Every structure is written in structure tokens, then in C-alpha cells.
């Protein structure tokens, strides 16, 4: 446990050693803030059928920074160790490989949570000031952030796997960006291709983060997405461990 914490804190700190963290934090805060402010303006002007939480998290202004954040925060994690050769000092310390993989995952996920913290507080502030719930019910507000966390787990693990595959950060970022993009937008395929078969539409909607967000921001806790994200995260992390060991021994 102590080893894990040591690795975890180094991983988390390493974000703040590089300018990337500050740049990502800045733009993320800017875009999330803009989105929030802009949607509030709209809701203010017109009678809305949706709550502010539902509206904010349905916007492209939410999805694009969201998708883009994962390659940016994960690309460096393994690639940099391979490139600088620090893998050798890291893995020759009395540390188990799974501890390395898990601590890197935890570090990245924690940073992702830091990215979302301001947004969480802006909703909290909204509720405090207006004495209105930001969502359908108090719980719906938390389910939205639960889903954000679940999606974050999955996409972080995708990004980490991509980073473990190559010592080039740009390639890692490209791989994870493409995969996450596909995960988010492939479920729109039936719509784009005008498929009317309801079975196909339904299958795609099972895997659609956009659909999940629509449900969760209404306060509907569906266990299927939870199982999907948790098990996919486990799979990606397992693959990352395998790739990590393979690359280490090949080196």
C-alpha cells in the first residue's frame, strides 16, 4: 500500500511538473465555464423543459473538451517512461508491475476528477444561489457526476493502454483520441445511415455515452452502463498490464 501511494503521488505530481496540466486545466475550466454560463443565459430567457444539468451535458461544448481531455492527460504516462528509459529504474525497484499500472491509472483518474471539480462546484453554487435544484432532483445531480466518473474511468484506461503501446506521445494521443471518438460517435451510425430497424438502433444505444448521459442526467440509474464501463475499465487495465510487461521484456 505504501508503495502504491508513493507511485500514485509521484504520478499525480508529475502532471503538475509539466505545463500540460496547467494548459489542460485552463482550457477545460474555460470551456466548461463558458458552457455553463451560456446555457444558463439560454434557460433564463426561455421557458425550458429540461433542467440545467441535462442541458449542459448534452452540448457539443461539453463533449468535445471531454473527449479531448483524455488523450492529453494520458498520452505521456507510459510513453515518457519508455522514451526516457526510466522504466528501467522503476521496474528494478521492489515494485510489482500491477502496482505500477494501478497507480498510474489512479493518478490519471484523480487528475481527471480535479478537471471536473470546478464544474461540480459551479452547479453547487447555482443551487445555493437560486435555491433551485440544478437537476430533476438532488440525486440526479449526483448521478450525472457518477456517470462522468464512470466514463472517465473507461476513457482514461483506453488512453493509458494507448500510451503503453508506444514511446511516442503523439501516436499514443492519436490512438486514444480515435478510439474514444469512435466510442462516443459510432452509436450515431444508425441515425446517420437512416437505419430504421429498431433492434439495431437499440443495440447501438446501449453503448452510446451520449445516450447514457441523457439518462443519468435525468436521474435514471441504469445498471447496464455501470457494468459496461466498470468491466471495460478492468479489461483495458488488464491489457495495459500485459502490454507493459511485454514491452518491458522486449526492451
Amino acid at each position, binding site marked *: 500500500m505504501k508503495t502504491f501511494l508513493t507511485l500514485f503521488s509521484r504520478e499525480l505530481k508529475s502532471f503538475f511538473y509539466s505545463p500540460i496540466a496547467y494548459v489542460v486545466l485552463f482550457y477545460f475550466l474555460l470551456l466548461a465555464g463558458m458552457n455553463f454560463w451560456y446555457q444558463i443565459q439560454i434557460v433564463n430567457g426561455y421557458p425550458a423543459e429540461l433542467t440545467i444539468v441535462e442541458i449542459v451535458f448534452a452540448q457539443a461544448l461539453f463533449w468535445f473538451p471531454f473527449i479531448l481531455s483524455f488523450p492529453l492527460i494520458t498520452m505521456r504516462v507510459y510513453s515518457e517512461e519508455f522514451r526516457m528509459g526510466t522504466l528501467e529504474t522503476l521496474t*528494478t*525497484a521492489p515494485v510489482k508491475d500491477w502496482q505500477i499500472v494501478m497507480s498510474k491509472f489512479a493518478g490519471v483518474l484523480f487528475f481527471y476528477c480535479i478537471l471536473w471539480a470546478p464544474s461540480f462546484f459551479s452547479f453547487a453554487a447555482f443551487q445555493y444561489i437560486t435555491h433551485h435544484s440544478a437537476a430533476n432532483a438532488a440525486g440526479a445531480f449526483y448521478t450525472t457526476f457518477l456517470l462522468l466518473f464512470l466514463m472517465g474511468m473507461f476513457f482514461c484506461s483506453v488512453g493509458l493502454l494507448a500510451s503503453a503501446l508506444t514511446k511516442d506521445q503523439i501516436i499514443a494521443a492519436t490512438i486514444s483520441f480515435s478510439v474514444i471518438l469512435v466510442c462516443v460517435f459510432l452509436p450515431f451510425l444508425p441515425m446517420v445511415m437512416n437505419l430504421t430497424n429498431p433492434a439495431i438502433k437499440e443495440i447501438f444505444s446501449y453503448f452510446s455515452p451520449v445516450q447514457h448521459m441523457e439518462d443519468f442526467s435525468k436521474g435514471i440509474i441504469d445498471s447496464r452502463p455501470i457494468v459496461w464501463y466498470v468491466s471495460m475499465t478492468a479489461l483495458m487495465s488488464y491489457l495495459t498490464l500485459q502490454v507493459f510487461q511485454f514491452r518491458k521484456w522486449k526492451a
Partner: protein
Amino acid sequence: MIKVENLTKRYAGVTAINNLNFEVEKGEIVGFLGPNGAGKSTTMKILTSYLPASSGRATIAGFDVFEQSVEARKHLGYLPENTPLYTDMRVNEYLRYRASLKGVPGRKMRQSVGDVLELCSLRDVEHKLIGSLSKGYRQRVGLADALVHDPDLLILDEPTIGLDPNQIRHVRELIKNLGGKRTVLISTHILPEVEIMCSRVIVIHKGKIRASDTAENLLKNQRTAGSMRFEAKVGSDDAATDLQKLPGVKDVATEKDGDYSVFQLRLEANTDPSEELMRLAMSKHWVVREITRRRPTLEDVFVELTHSDS
């Protein structure tokens, strides 16, 4: 401390090390010598469980480096080739991180890190970013990292590379002082270093061990012996032919230096023709300016052991 049995490592098509067997006792400082690509680094990487062996086994302090790798690594301080470091961390921060990773308890942290900062003369740069340090300092940070948890065994892959002569001396002194309590395995191709620091030398070439002995014994037993330099005014004599006839002389090369002639005599092993040489010179009335015996060096041993393919 280290026990290596029938260790073999094959990369795609290339055999890096072939059926290696050796042992290092506790407290020894062993020099691992060999030309580039001999398999030194590969062997070290297997010992530190960074690479798995293709066959054979190795143990550190009784722990198999593959099966009980974490236990084995606890006994180990390792300085890899080229000293990889996190360039975005500060020196003392990095050492604290490494110490914690290697299980140094929190209450001993300050002491341990302070000790290695002192030992490796890093006090004046402890707050600097590793990325801004020169090669010599980085090398010492790597060494401090290897030492920080006070390991029983140190494996150092070319520890003096990139250092200036003063630092090299300092590091050699340091390593020499580590012996006794700790076991040290150093790879290098700088030969004087081995003679100064190591109690034993293992010469490896093309993945095989060519010799394993003290530097002294290696010199004594080597087949190519030393040479002799002889300078004299020999007049019109055909001195080279006479010198050639002396016992133990393999061949003679002659050079002119003004009135004097300079002869280089290559000798057979364990022969010393100086007495015969002096008699010859006296009988011929040569004016002798210099007779020097050149003893065989470790370099000769190294060249002999690693030059031929035999």
C-alpha cells in the same frame, strides 16, 4: 550473494549471453569486463529482473530473480547504463521518492537521503531540477539513488562514464569504500578502474566468460608477456641479430634516435633476459642509455582474451 547458473539470453536470432556461470561472494567488488556488446549489460539486466533469461537461473541473496523477483530486488541497488532519471523532479525530491519506493521508512528518510547527498557530493544541487544538471551530476544522482536504501548488493553499469577525472577518482574511492559490507558488481571497459577498485575480475566476451580471477593472477597467468626497451649506442654492430639470439626474445624492432638505437624486444612469458642483455652490451662495448622492462598490463590481458575469436 549472486549466483548465476547456465544463464542464456537470446534476442531474436542473436545469443547475447551463452551459458554463463559465476558466483559473487558477499563483500566482493567484482569488475565485469568486456568489449561493447559482450553481454555485460544484458547480464546485469537479468540480475536486476529487468529482462527474463531465455534459460538458466540467477539468484540474489538466495532469491530467484525471476520467481521471487520483488524479494531479490529489495537487496539491490542498480545504476543502469546512461542513468535514466526523471528530469522534471528536483534532486532531493527524486531521492526521497526513490527511497520511499525502495521501502525506506518515513522516520529514516531524512537521514538516508542526507547521507547519500553527502556521500555523492550533491549537497549544492539538492534543490535543482535534475533536467538542468550536467552529465556528471546526473551520474552521481543515479549513484545516490542506487545507494539510498543501503542495499547489500550494488550493480553499477559503467558508473564513471561521463565524469571528469576528479569525479572519476571520487566515485572510484567511494565504490572502493563500499566493499567489505556490500557486494558490488561493476561493468566497465576502463581497465585501470578495475585494477584500482575490484577484488576480482570477470572477463566476458561474446556472451561467454573468458576469465574470472584477481587482476594480479590474470596478469601472472597470461600468455603474451611483456616487452623490453633497450637504448644504446651500438656503432656499426648488427645489434638486432645479436639481441634476437638472447633467450626468451621473440622479435626485435629497431629505431634510430640520433647516435643511439632504440630496440623494442618482445619477450616470451615469464622470461627476463636482462642479465644476458647486460653481458652482451658489455662485451660489445655498447653505450647503454636505457633498459626498461614493461610489465604486462590488464590491457594486454583484455586484448588477448577478447580479441581473438578462439
